[in-house]
C-alpha cells in the first residue's frame, strides 16, 4: 500500500475556513511551513518538531474527512491527488486495450475508452480523464469532454452491446467543456444522444462516480443500472460556484450553495438516486490511492457478477422503472393554480 505525502490546505484558495477543525489545520500547516523555512534558512534541525506537527495535521485531516461538510467534500472530490481513470482501469481490468476516436472528427483525451477483462470476462470501460499535472490537465481539458468524447464513448457502448458485454463507466468531470468548438460540433446533441442510447442500451451498465459528478457532462456517461459513488464524491446539477453566482449573485457563497444543493453521496443515497456508497480510506482516496482503487474494483466486480445471466428484458424494464421514478411531484388536480395571469 502506498501513502501519498500530506497535502497543504484541504481547500485551495480558501482563506477563512469557518470550520474549527479546518482552522486548526491551517494553523498547524502554517507552523510546519515556518519550521521548514527556519530549517532551510538557518540550518537548524527541527525534524522532531516538524514530525510532531505533521502527525497532528494528519490527525486533523482524518478527523475532517470523517465528517466533512458538503463544501469539504467538494474539495475532497476535486483533490488533485485523487486516483485517475487509468489507475482505476488498471486496478479493475487485465488485458486492457484503449480504443481511440469517434470515427468522425477526432480523439478526445478527456474521455478514455477501451475493452478489458474483469474477472476473466470482457467488458467495455469508459471514464473521464483528468490530468496529473498542469500539462496533462491542459491536454485533457481537466476532464471536460468535447462532443467527440461523448461520441467516442457511445461508439464503444454500442460495441459492447453488439458483443453482449457489460459497460463500466467512471465519472470524474467538472462538466462538459464550455467551448466555442464544442458548441459548433453540437455539445447538446452529443449529450442528448448519449442519454437516449444509454437509456435503451441492451447490456448492463455499472457506473461509479469517483470524484466530481459535474452536471450533464457527468450524466452523459451515467445512465446506468447501478450507480455507486465513492464516499466523498459529489454529483450536482451545477457547481457550487456557478450556483452561488446565479442564485446568490455572490460567487463567495459557495459553501452555502454546496450545502443547499445536497450533492454528497449520503444525501443522494437518501433520495434513492445512489445504489451504493463505496467507503474511502481514512483522510480520503488521495491519501491511500491503492485502497480506494481496490475498493472500487471490488464493488464493480460484485455488481457485474450480480448482473450476469439476467435477461435483457428484465434489465431494460428495471432501468426504465428506476429512472421513471426519480423526482418529487404532487398532484393537486382540482385546485386552482396559485394565481391568475394579470
Amino acid at each position, binding site marked *: 500500500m502506498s501513502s501519498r505525502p500530506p497535502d497543504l490546505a484541504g481547500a485551495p484558495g480558501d482563506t477563512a475556513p469557518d470550520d474549527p477543525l479546518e482552522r486548526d489545520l491551517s494553523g498547524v500547516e502554517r507552523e510546519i511551513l515556518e519550521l521548514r523555512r527556519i530549517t532551510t534558512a538557518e540550518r537548524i534541525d527541527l525534524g522532531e518538531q516538524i514530525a510532531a506537527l505533521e502527525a497532528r495535521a494528519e490527525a486533523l485531516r482524518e478527523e475532517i474527512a470523517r465528517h466533512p461538510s458538503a463544501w469539504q467534500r467538494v474539495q475532497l472530490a476535486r483533490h488533485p491527488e485523487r486516483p485517475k481513470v487509468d489507475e482505476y482501469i488498471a486496478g479493475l481490468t487485465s488485458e486492457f486495450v484503449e480504443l481511440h476516436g469517434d470515427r468522425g472528427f477526432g480523439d478526445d483525451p478527456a474521455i478514455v475508452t477501451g475493452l478489458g477483462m474483469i474477472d476473466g470476462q470482457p467488458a467495455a470501460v469508459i471514464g473521464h480523464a483528468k490530468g496529473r499535472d498542469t500539462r496533462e490537465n491542459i491536454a485533457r481539458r481537466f476532464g471536460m469532454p468535447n462532443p467527440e468524447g461523448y461520441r467516442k464513448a457511445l461508439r464503444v457502448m454500442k460495441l459492447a452491446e453488439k458483443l453482449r458485454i457489460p459497460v463500466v463507466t467512471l465519472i470524474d468531470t467538472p462538466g*462538459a*467543456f*464550455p*467551448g*466555442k468548438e*464544442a*458548441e*459548433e460540433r*453540437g*455539445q*447538446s*446533441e452529443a*449529450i*442528448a*444522444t448519449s*442519454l*437516449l442510447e*444509454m*437509456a*435503451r442500451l441492451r447490456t448492463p451498465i455499472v457506473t461509479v462516480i469517483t470524484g466530481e459528478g459535474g*452536471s*450533464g457532462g457527468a*450524466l452523459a456517461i*451515467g*445512465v446506468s443500472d447501478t450507480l455507486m459513488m465513492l464516499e466523498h464524491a459529489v*454529483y*450536482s*446539477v*451545477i457547481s457550487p460556484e*456557478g*450556483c452561488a453566482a446565479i*442564485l*446568490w*449573485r455572490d460567487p463567495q457563497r459557495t459553501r*452555502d450553495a454546496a450545502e*443547499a*444543493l*445536497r*450533492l454528497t453521496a449520503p444525501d443522494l443515497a437518501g*433520495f434513492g*438516486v445512489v445504489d451504493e456508497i463505496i467507503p474511502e480510506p481514512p483522510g480520503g482516496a488521495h491519501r491511500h490511492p491503492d485502497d480506494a482503487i481496490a475498493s472500487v474494483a471490488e464493488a464493480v466486480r460484485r455488481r457485474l457478477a450480480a448482473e450476469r445471466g439476467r435477461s435483457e428484458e428484465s434489465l431494460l424494464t428495471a*432501468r*426504465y422503472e428506476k*429512472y*421513471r421514478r*426519480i*423526482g*418529487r*411531484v*404532487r*398532484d*393537486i*388536480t382540482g*385546485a386552482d*393554480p*396559485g*394565481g*391568475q*395571469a*394579470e
Partner: protein
Amino acid sequence: MAPPVLDWFGRPNRAAPERREMPAGLWIKCPRCASLVYRKELERNLRVCPRCGYHHRLSAVDRLALVLDRDSFAQTDSGLAPEDPLGFVDEKPYPERIEEAERRTGQREAILTGTGTIEGSRAVVGAMEFGFLGGSMGSVVGEKVARSAERAHERRWPLVLFVASGGARMQEGTLSLLQMAKTSVALGRLADAGVAFISVLCDPTTGGVAASFAFQGDVIVAEPGALVGFAGRRVIEQTIRQKLPDGFQTAEFLLEHGLVDAIVPRGELRTTLARLLRLAKAPCDPALAGAAAQGWEFGEPLAADEQPTA
C-alpha cells in the same frame, strides 16, 4: 382525463408576460431593431417584428394557440405541481419563487401538456413556459415530458414539444439533473416503438434541456433567431478568453453546423408541422423501421365529422 379545452383559442394572441412591463401598452419596442411597433400590428403578425423579423417570445398558451386547431387542445396532467425536496433556500425560499412564477404566468409549472390536432392530424403536444422560472426543468417538467412520451406511445400519436428553457432547475438539485435521464428513458421507449417525436426549438433552448429532449427529436426545427446552445455565452467567453462572434448559438448557426433540420418562420410553423405529420402518416413498410417498430406512426386521420372547423 383533462379539463375540457380552455377558451384560449378564441383569443390566440393573448398578452405574453413581457408586455406588462410596457406601461403605455399600445406600442412595443422591438428588442432587436428598437423600432416601436403598434401592439395590434405586432399581434396580427404573430408577435414577429414587421420591421426586422425578430420573433418575440411566446407564452406556452400562445404557442399552442398558434399551431393547434381551434378547440382541439385537451390539457393533461394539469394538476402536477412542484415539491421542495431539498428544502432549498437561496436569497428566497424555493416555494416563494414558485408562487411568484405562478402569479406571473398563471401556470403551475414550466410546461403545458396535452393532446390536440394540427390541420386534423392528432398529436401529443407540450409547450414550455419560459416565464416560469426560466422554463427550467425540475421534477414536474420531467414528469410531464415522460408522461407525454408514454401517452404518445400508448395512442401511437406523434409527440410534438415546443422547447423554451434555460436548463435544469437548480432548486431541485441532482433530482433536476436526473430528469434528463427520466425523459430519455421515456423517449427511448417511444423511439423503440416507432412513434415519431418532433422537437421545436424556441428562444431560448439551453443547458440540460438542450442536452436532453430538445435534441432527441427525430425531426428538429428551430424558430428564426432562437438562442440554442449548451453552455452560456459568458461561461464560454471566460473559459476560452475571447469574444464570441455575433450570431453564435443562434438557430441559423445551428443550421449551418448541421445540428437542426430546418428553420421555420413563425408564420409557416403550423403548416410545416402539419405537413411533417401528414408526410410520415404515409404507409411505411414495417421491415424498414426495425424489427420491434411498426413504422413511423403519425396517427390516424380524423373522420370527416371530427375535422376541426378552424
